[in-house]
């Protein structure tokens, strides 16, 4: 097993279907596990260790949070890859517009978008859930919250097609996305922001928050900083939520008893959202050591990288009873860290929760007989994001089961 672990590579295609056995082996390693793949990196995998690692800013930087290291040529995305002391000042301008009270106003729009798309899809016998629903739904919800015109949706979907959502799971895609696509996105986002500033118009949306962001009173974001924020918010808000929704549906479409629980009692859906993101959290951020120190008994020196394997933390039996089972009634026992912990905890978690809840509510109302297509199993992805590339669903009752 130790050999297995020293060659643990989250990008290895053979792990994508079921990485959880090796996660269990990683949790059993004393201290921090070490892999020599991808230039070498440490792995935190127990809940308590991942939790600690995410909160520690004394030895860790987020400027690079990738394995292998990737630095954006346009400067660290804001606020995701900014360290203290600047971090708080660069995150605060977005706190309210991503806060629960503001986000709650989007529910009607999101529900209408989900219902409209699902009613169209319900005409069909089968769908590919990721591209037919998850991505366009999440993008539409994002554009509305962001304040961008919905007519720009095709432009965003084109970036998606050019590899955006594989940047976390495919190293080749990552280089192209980082160096080319992200720079285009940045310019496009700056187009919205520049136009808003030029118009003098004030609106209650993310564009407004970026356009008028100040690092401190009287020191507005520079144009370059506004571009870094716009691109980071775009990237953090789209394929993440689409992946979480797709992952949830991978599970539900092959566990029809659980699906039926949600059809019968939609009030379970909010806790089902929490449980399903505990079961398969999407993001596995890394941290780069910038000051010599120690974690879990392991001495760390500047340049070391530690992968925070949130997906393994979610299955830690020290933290959860029967962690490999999905139980919508876990409630208070579900202290998951799927959104991270500490100062970099997901800024958009309230949006993600809203989009996931609304989607699952409308799905279980409008296409309640969905199930996984046994002939076309889901295509899963790993890397630094647990995702789903394809999920084929049959929408009709058993009369349409193919032999």
């Amino acid at each position, binding site marked *: 097993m130790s050999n297995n672990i020293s060659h643990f590579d989250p990008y290895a295609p053979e792990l994508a279907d079921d990485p959880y056995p090796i996660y269990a082996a990683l949790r059993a390693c004393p201290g921090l596990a070490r892999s020599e793949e991808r230039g070498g990196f440490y792995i935190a995998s127990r809940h308590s260790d991942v939790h600690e690692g995410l909160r520690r800013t004394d030895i860790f930087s987020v400027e690079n949070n990738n394995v292998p290291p990737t630095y954006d040529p346009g400067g660290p995305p804001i606020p995701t890859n900014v360290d203290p002391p600047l971090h708080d000042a660069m995150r605060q301008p977005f*706190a309210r517009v991503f*806060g629960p009270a503001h986000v709650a106003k989007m529910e009607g729009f999101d529900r209408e978008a989900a219902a409209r798309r699902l009613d169209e899809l319900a005409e069909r016998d089968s769908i590919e859930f990721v591209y037919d629903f998850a991505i366009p739904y999440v993008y539409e919800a994002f554009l509305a919250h962001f304040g961008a015109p919905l007519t720009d949706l095709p432009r965003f979907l084109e970036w998606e097609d050019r590899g955006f959502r594989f940047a976390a799971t495919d190293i080749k895609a990552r280089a192209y996305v980082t160096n080319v696509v992200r720079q285009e996105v940045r310019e496009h986002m700056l187009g919205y922001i520049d136009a808003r500033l030029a118009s003098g118009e004030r609106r209650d949306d993310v564009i407004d928050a970026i356009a008028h962001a100040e690092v401190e009173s009287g020191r507005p974001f520079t144009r370059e900083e506004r571009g870094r924020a716009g691109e980071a918010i775009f990237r953090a808000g789209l394929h993440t939520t689409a992946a979480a929704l797709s992952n949830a549906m991978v599970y539900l479409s092959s566990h029809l008893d659980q699906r039926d629980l949600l059809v019968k009692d939609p009030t379970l859906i909010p806790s089902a959202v929490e449980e399903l993101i505990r079961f398969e959290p999407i993001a596995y951020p890394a941290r780069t050591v910038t000051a010599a120190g120690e974690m879990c008994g392991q001495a760390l020196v500047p340049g070391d990288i530690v992968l925070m394997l949130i997906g393994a933390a979610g299955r830690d039996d020290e933290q959860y009873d029967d962690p490999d089972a999905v139980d919508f009634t876990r409630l*208070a026992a579900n202290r998951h860290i799927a959104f991270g912990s500490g100062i970099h905890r997901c800024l958009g978690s309230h949006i993600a929760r809203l989009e996931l809840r609304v989607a699952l509510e409308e799905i279980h109302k409008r296409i309640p007989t969905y199930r996984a297509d046994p002939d076309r199993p889901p295509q899963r992805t790993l890397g630094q994001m647990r995702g789903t590339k394809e999920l084929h669903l049959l929408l009709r009752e058993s009369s349409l089961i193919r032999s």
Partner: protein
Amino acid sequence: MTEKVRIAVDKSRCDGHARCFALAPEVYPLDAEGYCALDDVLIDAALLEPAQRGAAACPEQAISVSVTSGPVGIGSMTERGLHLFELDELPWEHPAPRPGQDTRSHGAGVLEKWLVKPALDDPEEDRFPVSIIRFPPNLVFPRHWHTDGEMMLVLAGSASVGGEELPVGGLAYNDARTIYGAEAAGADGCDFLMIRRAWAKNNVMLTDEAVAEAVSSGITDSQDRLSPSVADRGLHILDRTAPFEPVGDGTDEQWLLGREAGDDRPLISVVRSPAGHAFPPYLDTEGRFTLVLEGSLVVDGAELPAGSMLYHDAGVTYGGESAGPSGCELLTVRRAPAKRTVSA
């Protein structure tokens, strides 16, 4: 004795997971940014179960829930009688948010500790509000006026009122319907005791236009200067220069404010009592707040040192009170003149 549930949230650990709110929204409100809006509060014992559920769900374990009971403090204010405030036990809270204001940054770090919190809309309510306010260092509160006057006594740090520095022990009174400010905390911040006759509304005046409009509707603008004497309306530092006068029961009283009946000010005086003086059993028609300034006060055999704060409800007969071995000086505040009935 009433049991209460105390919830203390370690705000430095709260990351905004909002799991407490998801599991017990009736106990854990969120602020506009998604952080737990509670700090340190006492809530009804009936909410113990949801309070514990929400605390258990916190990934940061930032919430502690405990059951408290005791004869003192807010927890016992449902009962009528003599209340001795255990000041260290009373929680600091963020002042209640005002509409349109986000709670996390609300009040720029101002905290509030309630001693007496009267019911808002109860016509039978006869208590007056008493709280301790904590201003962070160098906080400047903008110009404003209140619908009711305000007594402030500096307990720690310093404040400036009407351009005058008010050190620990400094006592000020600002009349109702008078614009003043900025009142400011000193470099070490300021804790002050605040007493009003009734709940008041704050009206913050951010612009000169707002001030002009208020003045045209009959509000006085102090221009942040102290009034020449307490006979004038405005800002006053109560400097305790008035003579002590014999009350006739062996104690002396120094009037600081409001002795003239019928005005809108509270009655503030200092009662000086010689060593061992026993107060005969009495009943007042008004409630009374007391702060032991000097010496000590003995109540039912317990010696309450300087700094002790008490509230006597109206309509209750009190006995067994006497001055300590070195006598005492008691700052007393009432909202209106009281009629006292002394038993033999």
